């Protein structure tokens, strides 16, 4: 029992420690067949151990890479830990990526084993298998539809579990295990022998960044980097064994690995895997997580969902809710800016809590929420105010894959809306002469996989260049302005951060995505995507007929709606940053078309090129319409031409325009 003397230094060692000290507690649940099926830490260890032995039987070993493609499933998390236990490196890949994107990451990582969730993923891999010479085995979790596939190396994950269990007493692995662990090689003892073979400096994960700039890079993170970052984070945000988290964000996003694997293993919190992508909201509400981490788009969509419900309520409920929520947001704004709650606030809160706020939180599945964190992209202050107003202590986190996720986090009691909080313990921040944020921490990555040039570019004397422009406020809290390369200037020299404008626009429930333009231009213009669900609901209630997204987007009444929204939002912006002209795009920006990343960040350069004619028209005072012929790629890979004429809308500058 020496492992417990020193703190476990690798993720599989942490799993072992949980299985030994609290083996009967729930480690992970999955909703399947309509029921939450639970697995304890001891069972998880057993599965990971069996898989590790199975992988070893397939010839997988130290330093080898194992790709994971699929939704959040216990089996995929077990495979991740099993690969690590053998000294191998798991490489989670975006489950909604196209075959071509999968091929890039899997080929670049040189994965020998691919663990795929189901037929959909297997089909994608098989489509590009010719370009994946290193892949020897493709293992699937769900056999549906795969019964008659006769593809070399394709077999079920269940088969590998069985292979692992049978391997006791035979095969090269168990021979070495028997030597290392002595008699009774089953259970924890045998697994201990395995984890003693790996060290904290081993690479624990290769995470492919979504890359707004082009080809993605494989970020290598060691066990030590992940665990030390996790421990620092837990000093600021305590998470414990009684906490519940829902694992519903892509496994390939480092944020999921950090919370669902690292934080779960460090804290002993339980992970819950939803039944399917479509049921996430219902599952979220059923579980009622106590800890949740989500990018702003999730919070925005929760807010939009709320606004639709309020809109659809009868006049009395709608009036009361709007008034109380509005007041609560104002109070949140004041207290965030250092003000104090007034007696009137407290009265309103006392009335609002039982009448509205508790019900809203319950509807959103936030009834038990204790730690709510947003990160991955900047969040609009209004979204923050809404959630804080209804009693959810939403805080911000800033970080990136290259520093094991968090670099700064707002402690629950020190939230300043314009900042992303102070650095977590062990992290140092510096702003260089160009205004770029630099990070030094024990959680820094070990380099980009097979890309020393990019590594050298990202690291300078032990400092990580984040690519974000920012500054430190007097209290040492970090303020992020925008991506350093995106911060630009209007024609008259006004500093223009497109993301800032876009986030304001996206606060409208009707606007899902926005691209703000203005670099070296006389004014700010925008291309927006409407939210098909919310606007569709709006149209239905007003009996506005439409056939599909393109039709709805170009509907004149929808245009009026969007115009009013932008006019309202303009009032929140400095006069020179107000949107003067805009166009509602004929199609949604789509990661399949490379317009946004899988984590929904706009690929500016690509969009600027692709939509150049539209952008020109936005700055051509004579243009009121622009014809577009777009190639739309469907999910099954077919392409079609859509031609459409887009109206360009102009807004009169609202309020007095400053005369320069």
């Amino acid at each position, binding site marked *: 029992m020496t492992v417990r003397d020193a703190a476990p230094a690798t993720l599989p060692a942490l799993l072992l420690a949980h299985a030994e000290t609290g083996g009967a507690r729930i480690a992970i649940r999955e909703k399947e*067949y*309509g029921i939450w099926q639970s697995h304890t830490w001891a069972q998880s260890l057993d599965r990971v151990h069996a898989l590790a032995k199975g992988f070893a039987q397939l010839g997988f070993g130290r330093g080898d890479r194992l790709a994971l493609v699929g939704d959040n499933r216990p089996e995929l998390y077990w495979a991740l830990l099993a690969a690590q236990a053998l000294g191998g490196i798991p490489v989670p890949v975006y489950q909604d990526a196209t075959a071509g994107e999968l091929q890039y990451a899997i080929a670049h990582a040189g994965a020998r084993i691919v663990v795929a969730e189901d037929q959909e993923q297997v089909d994608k891999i098989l489509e590009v298998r010719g370009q994946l010479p290193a892949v020897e085995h493709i293992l699937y979790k769900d056999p*549906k539809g795969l019964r008659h596939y006769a593809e070399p190396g394709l077999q079920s994950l269940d088969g590998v579990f069985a292979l692992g269990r049978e391997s006791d007493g035979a095969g090269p692995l168990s021979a070495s295990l028997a030597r290392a662990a002595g008699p009774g090689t089953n259970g924890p003892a045998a697994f201990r022998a395995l984890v003693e073979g790996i060290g904290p400096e081993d690479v624990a994960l290769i995470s492919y960044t979504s890359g707004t700039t082009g080809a993605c890079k494989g970020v290598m993170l060691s066990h030590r980097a992940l665990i030390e970052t996790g421990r620092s984070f837990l000093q600021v945000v305590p998470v414990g064994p009684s906490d519940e988290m829902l694992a519903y964000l892509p496994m390939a996003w480092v944020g999921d690995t950090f919370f669902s694997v690292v934080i779960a293993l460090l804290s002993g919190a339980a992970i819950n895997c939803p*039944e399917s992508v479509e049921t996430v909201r219902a599952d979220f509400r059923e579980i009622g997580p106590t800890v949740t981490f989500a990018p702003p788009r999730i919070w925005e969509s929760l807010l939009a969902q709320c606004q639709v419900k309020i809109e659809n309520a009868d006049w009395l409920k709608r009036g009361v809710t709007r008034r109380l929520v509005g007041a609560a947001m104002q109070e949140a704004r004041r207290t965030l800016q250092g003000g104090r709650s007034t007696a009137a606030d407290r009265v309103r809160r006392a009335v609002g809590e039982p009448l509205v706020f508790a019900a809203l939180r319950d509807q959103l599945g936030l009834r038990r929420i204790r730690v709510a964190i947003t990160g991955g992209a900047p969040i609009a202050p209004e979204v923050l105010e809404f959630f804080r107003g209804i009693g959810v202590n939403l805080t911000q986190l800033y970080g990136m894959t290259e520093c094991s996720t968090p670099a700064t986090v707002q402690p629950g009691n020190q939230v300043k809306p314009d900042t992303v909080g102070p650095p977590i313990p062990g992290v140092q921040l510096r702003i260089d002469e160009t205004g770029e944020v630099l990070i030094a921490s024990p959680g820094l990555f070990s380099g980009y996989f097979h890309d020393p040039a990019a590594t050298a570019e990202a690291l300078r004397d032990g400092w990580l260049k984040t690519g974000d422009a920012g500054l430190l406020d007097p209290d040492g809290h970090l303020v992020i302005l925008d991506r350093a390369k995106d911060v630009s200037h209007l024609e008259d020299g006004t500093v223009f951060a497109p993301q800032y404008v876009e986030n304001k626009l996206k606060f409208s429930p009707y606007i899902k995505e926005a691209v703000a333009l203005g670099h070296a231009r006389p004014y700010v213009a925008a291309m927006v995507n409407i939210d098909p669900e919310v606007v569709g609901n709006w149209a239905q209630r007003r009996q506005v007929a439409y056939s599909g997204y393109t039709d709805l987007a170009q509907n004149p009444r929808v245009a009026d709606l969007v115009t009013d929204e932008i006019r309202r939002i303009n009032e929140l912006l400095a006069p020179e940053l107000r949107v003067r002209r805009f166009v509602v795009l004929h199609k949604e920006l789509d990661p399949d078309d490379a317009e946004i990343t899988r984590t929904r960040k706009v690929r500016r350069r690509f969009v600027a090129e692709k939509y150049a004619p539209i952008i020109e028209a936005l700055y051509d005072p004579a243009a009121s319409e622009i014809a577009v012929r777009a190639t739309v790629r469907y999910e*099954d890979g077919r392409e079609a031409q859509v031609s459409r004429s887009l109206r360009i809308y102009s807004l009169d500058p609202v309020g007095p325009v400053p005369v320069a």
Partner: protein
Amino acid sequence: MLNGDRGPRLRAEDVLVRFGGVTALSGVGMDVRGGEILALIGPNGAGKTTLINTISGVYRPAAGRIFLDGREITGRAPDEVARRGVARTFQNVSLFGGMTVLENILVGRHIHMRAGILASGIYWGWGERDELRHREAAERIIDFLEISHIRKAAAGTLPYGLRKRVDLGRALAAEPTVLLLDEPMTGMNREEKEDMVRFILDISDEWAPAIVLIEHDMGVVMDISNRVVVLDHGRKIAEGVPDQIRTNTDVLRAYLGAAPAAVPGAAR
């Protein structure tokens, strides 16, 4: 569940159906084996649905015989035919609109429900065990057809494509050995059709029932069926593998009045 070489699972011999003076089917016969997908095609009014209705016991044939695993079921009542393992979907989806998807699928299990009013009413003990067993079977179908997100939605509120899928789920819930699908893809867009085709193939893979499929989309028919039977004016005018049907001049004449180059949709 493959019945190997034990003969056809479903067999119709010389079936004759008359409605007053109209002869809807005359002398139609066919065999379907377990694991086989047999497509039943023909112009409107050819008698395709009549044949399915006759097999499932809705109509009583004036002559001819129908066998299930070699045992005659001619003229049996629909509920008895269903109990013997024949399930079907309907051209006009027939679900209980006010009931949830889960409840509709559970209805499909009624032929397997053993607990009587008394046992179900008391619930604890036998009734409970029975209910759990059926719920689990229904959940497996929900998982299989990927409709977990609408498990608790009222069937009547669903879009058409999903209602068709639930209808299929209700039929599957009976654990049929013969599955009769009456135009499961009408009114669907391309994507929905692709999904449905995939589900039919997966069902065939998973449980290997004898499947009789009525469908007008020739692309689908030629793609997924093992054999095709062509009806016209109540008679069988052709039978064979898709490639034979594609070039059969009788079939072309029945569909188009003359004999052009190919069956519509056959060239994809």
